[in-house]
């Protein structure tokens, strides 16, 4: 056993010595044979001749001995590698193009895979994260469910107390608080959570402890837990941060714990939820979120069924809830909630880069086939010398593998930078973006892809090349049209396939482009140009009463209006496209119950009296607010078109009275145009405005300011900030952005998908065009004798042009045809990503093929021109 191994190792490493020994052995044998022959009476020459003849071919014997040594494969591999590298170095142009093409294809796939891997394939960073679910509220009578919405505290407690399917549950909601007294004031992203939050997630503090149930009470909730990031960023990462106090929104908190780095996200601080009495009481006030951990053995469907039971129980107890329309509870896995939206886009992206890789493979395969034509002599000689076809195929495959691995290595580097760029530019739209990295799985994926790629583009050329008949090849010198045809058929097939794939990608990109264009044409309902927006939140210590708050905003707006360059200014509780929500319901005087057709009631907006004008929302009937609408004056509201159409279709809404969030009746004094509040794609949700002096919430702590400027809004930022600072120098101003920026951010994800798909589709187009050119150019070279003959027989330059371009265009048309059929079928899969564009949009399906045809024409023209320059005499002589 050991001797066998020793022998193999010797054979591997001391190859030349073993070869020497074998030669010695053979020589010895020959000498003895010659001696024997001499002894038999032959002459020396005869003796030698007889001996060599009976021995047989020495070289062959040596080959067979080598075969028996059993390390053949490894030796062969080593030999193949050396030979391949030599060949690749000798053809730098070919090698460079192939490696680059492969690098682009493989790199794109690696980049997309790392994103897919981190977002879709890795479990969330919690213990047993597949057991975690979110519970949300859905509303909508008549079976059409709305988007997931928050739940209310009373409902949460019922879910918590009545369920049998959850091991633990927790409530949470996000907010922003100002951190002051620590140097630079900063607005932090905060999560208010119940004490069970961390245990539900399965996360433990790395320092200190988590909240205890008593700390959920409003009086005892002066404790916070820091995120790992915040701990390092603002507190130096020191262990004695436990026990330190800090100030959030002018309230004092003690640090009791720090979360591990694995719990990353936007949240920087956790505070106990400390529900207010109002929150505890109002079952209709849904603004909270809930997570739960399923008991072992329970699945989402079972949990959903149980929630449905609990909901009907609640409805039986409180039938008035149904007055606003049907509602229910939904259960979704946390994973689904986090990544569900982006999954489709990522899958489309994966398919796209897969196609690009296939096209790249086709191009490299074509390059290999073209080169193999030049190597036929070499291969023929080796076949004649006794190498088996398998040996040749293995050698060619080694070359392909080397190319692919080089391409893969370069591609991996490209994808590393590509992923960094991708995350940097698209951070907001990628869930779990912090987790995106190139890890070992991506490395394995790249290697496997490279190997499969090499088989894909290498196998066919290897087989086809080894089919050479040695005699035929050697006799005919370097070229022949006979055995070349089979290769050519295959090459043409590759080109057709490339064109088809490129077409599919281009159609997809075209559809996304059109969707995006349509999206940008959507009328927001207000003027988004030259509009500066910002947010101010007032600490309760300085602005404890409603009058103080209302007065502040009034004065702030007055001051801002004096800034040069400012045309008008207004304030609102919820700015369009800001992501903030305040919804509620209202009752119309004289009507019993109103079924709500769209969503949970209406968006309620507390505004300063110039807000609507500043935003450029048109007045359709009645009047805007004015400064006579203050506290104590008759209560008024303005509704928008959507509400007017929904509830006052046949009558004049002006003069009617509604009750909003309380018993006071308010008169409708105006109707304004509808706006897109949530985003360009959202449905029109009814907006109901009231003057902030009369709002039912006793004056807003937090409002958005909208400032219309004459010129570029960002130029006025410091002036506006100065105006506010003059009123209160400690009051920071947040989220300063122009409305155009908000609009742009709201479509950022779409824009990014469009950009990426467009990028890859363009890459595919480029590769396909290069492929067409390459095959046609080579075909011209191979057909030079034939063209020479034609020209000698009287064909004109025009005829030759037509011949060559015709060949190229036929391939292209075939590819376009196949591609169109494929596109018809496949684009249906991306219809969820489209906006107001059909998956079979005729314009796109016509323009893209035209684009391809024109690119193909350019690609065909150059080889065709070269063909016309062929001198028939030279061509025929070379034959």
């Amino acid at each position: 056993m050991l001797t066998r191994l020793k022998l193999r190792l010797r054979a591997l490493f001391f190859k030349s010595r073993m070869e020497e020994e074998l030669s010695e052995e053979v020589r010895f044998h020959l000498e003895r044979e010659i001696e024997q022959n001499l002894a038999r009476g032959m002459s020396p020459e005869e003796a030698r001749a007889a001996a060599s003849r009976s021995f047989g071919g020495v070289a062959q014997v040596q080959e067979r001995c080598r075969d028996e040594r059993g390390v053949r494969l490894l030796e062969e591999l080593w030999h193949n590698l050396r030979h391949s590298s030599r060949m690749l170095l000798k053809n730098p142009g070919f090698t460079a193009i192939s490696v680059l093409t492969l690098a682009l294809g493989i790199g794109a796939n690696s980049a997309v895979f790392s994103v897919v891997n981190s977002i879709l394939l890795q479990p969330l960073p919690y213990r047993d994260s597949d057991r975690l679910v979110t519970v949300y509220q859905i509303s909508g009578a008549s079976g059409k469910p709305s988007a997931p919405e928050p739940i209310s505290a009373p409902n949460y407690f019922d879910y918590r107390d009545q369920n049998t399917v959850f091991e633990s549950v927790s409530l949470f909601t996000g907010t922003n608080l100002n951190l002051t007294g620590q140097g630079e004031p900063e607005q932090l992203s905060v999560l208010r959570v119940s004490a069970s939050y961390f245990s539900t997630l399965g996360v433990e503090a790395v320092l200190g402890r988590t909240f205890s149930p008593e700390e959920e009470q409003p009086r005892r909730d002066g404790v916070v837990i820091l995120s790992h990031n915040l701990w390092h960023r603002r507190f130096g990462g020191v262990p004695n941060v436990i026990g330190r106090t800090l100030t959030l929104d002018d309230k004092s908190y003690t640090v009791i714990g720090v979360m591990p780095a694995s719990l990353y996200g936007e949240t920087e601080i956790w505070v106990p939820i400390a529900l207010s009495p109002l929150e505890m009481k109002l079952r209709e006030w849904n603004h909270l979120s809930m997570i739960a951990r399923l008991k072992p053995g329970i699945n989402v469907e079972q949990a959903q069924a149980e929630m449905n039971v609990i909901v009907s129980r609640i409805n039986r107890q409180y039938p008035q809830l149904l007055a606003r329309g049907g509602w229910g509870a939904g259960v979704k896995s946390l994973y689904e909630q986090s990544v569900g939206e982006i999954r489709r886009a990522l899958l489309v992206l994966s398919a796209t880069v897969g196609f690009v890789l296939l096209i790249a493979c086709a191009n490299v395969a074509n390059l290999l086939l073209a080169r193999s034509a030049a190597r036929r002599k070499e291969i023929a000689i080796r076949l004649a010398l006794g190498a088996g076809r398998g040996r040749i195929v293995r050698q060619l495959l080694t070359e392909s593998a080397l190319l692919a691995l080089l391409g893969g290595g370069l591609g991996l580097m490209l994808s590393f930078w590509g992923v960094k760029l991708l995350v940097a530019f698209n951070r907001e739209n990628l869930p779990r973006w912090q987790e995106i990295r190139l890890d070992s799985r991506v490395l394995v994926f790249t290697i496997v892809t490279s190997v499969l790629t090499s088989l894909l583009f290498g196998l066919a050329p290897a087989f086809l090349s080894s089919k050479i008949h040695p005699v035929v090849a050697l006799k005919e010198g370097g070229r022949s049209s006979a055995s070349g045809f089979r290769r050519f058929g295959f090459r043409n097939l590759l080109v057709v396939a490339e064109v088809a794939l490129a077409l599919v990608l281009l159609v997809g990109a075209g559809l996304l482009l059109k969707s995006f264009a349509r999206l940008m044409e959507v009328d927001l309902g207000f003027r988004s140009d030259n509009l500066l927006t910002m947010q101010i939140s007032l600490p309760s210590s300085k602005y404890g009463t409603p009058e103080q708050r209302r007065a502040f905003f009034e004065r702030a707006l007055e001051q801002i209006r004096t800034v040069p360059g400012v045309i008008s200014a207004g304030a609102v509780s919820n700015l369009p496209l800001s992501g903030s929500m305040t919804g509620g319901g209202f009752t119309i005087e004289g009507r019993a119950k109103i079924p709500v057709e769209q969503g949970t009631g209406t968006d309620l907006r507390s505004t300063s009296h110039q807000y609507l004008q500043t935003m450029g929302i048109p007045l359709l009937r009645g009047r805007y607010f004015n400064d006579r609408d203050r506290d104590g004056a008759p209560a008024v509201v303005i509704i928008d078109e959507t509400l007017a159409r929904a509830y006052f279709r046949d009558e004049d809404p002006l003069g009617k009275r509604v009750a909003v969030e309380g018993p006071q009746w308010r008169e409708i004094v105006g109707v304004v145009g509808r706006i897109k509040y949530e985003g360009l794609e959202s449905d029109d949700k009814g907006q109901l405005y009231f003057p902030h002096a009369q709002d039912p919430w006793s004056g807003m702590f937090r409002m958005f300011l909208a400032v219309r400027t004459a010129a570029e809004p960002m130029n006025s930022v410091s002036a506006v900030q100065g105006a506010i600072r003059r009123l209160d120098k400690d009051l920071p101003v947040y989220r300063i952005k122009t409305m155009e920026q908000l609009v742009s951010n709201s479509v950022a994800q779409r824009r990014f998908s469009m950009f990426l798909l467009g990028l890859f589709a363009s890459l595919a187009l480029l590769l396909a065009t290069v492929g067409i050119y390459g095959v046609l150019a080579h075909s011209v070279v191979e057909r030079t004798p034939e063209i020479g003959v034609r020209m000698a027989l009287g064909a004109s330059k025009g005829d030759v042009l037509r011949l060559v371009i015709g060949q190229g265009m036929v391939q292209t048309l075939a590819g376009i045809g196949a591609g169109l059929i494929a596109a018809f079928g496949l684009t249906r899969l991306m219809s969820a990503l489209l906006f107001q564009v059909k998956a079979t949009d005729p314009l796109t399906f016509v323009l893209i093929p035209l684009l391809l045809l024109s690119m193909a024409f350019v690609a065909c023209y150059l080889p065709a021109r070269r063909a016309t320059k062929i001198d028939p005499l030279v061509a025929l002589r070379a034959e």
Partner: protein
Amino acid sequence: MKKEQTDLLQGTLDLLVLKTLQSGPTHGWDIAQRIQQVSQEVLRVGQGSLYPALHRLEAQGWISSEWGASENNRKAKYYKLTAAGRKQLSAETETWRRFTGAVELILKTS
């Protein structure tokens, strides 16, 4: 011309080589000669088969090799049986005897 000479099957050649080596270390030329002589010129081992066979047997671990001085003081590679080779020899001999015995039985009946 060489019709009477039987082409040796690979397995059979292995057996013969192992048997030949049973009497002691021998080099390639002598192995061929001995097989020829002992079989009374019926079996003639072509050098094209002998050396591959020797290398194969060595790769299997049934024989081992060593360089030494031949009768006329020239360098020659001597092969000898290993312990495993001895076992293989008796196994193959057994197989061969059974095989030929069976063939004999069939030939006798017709």
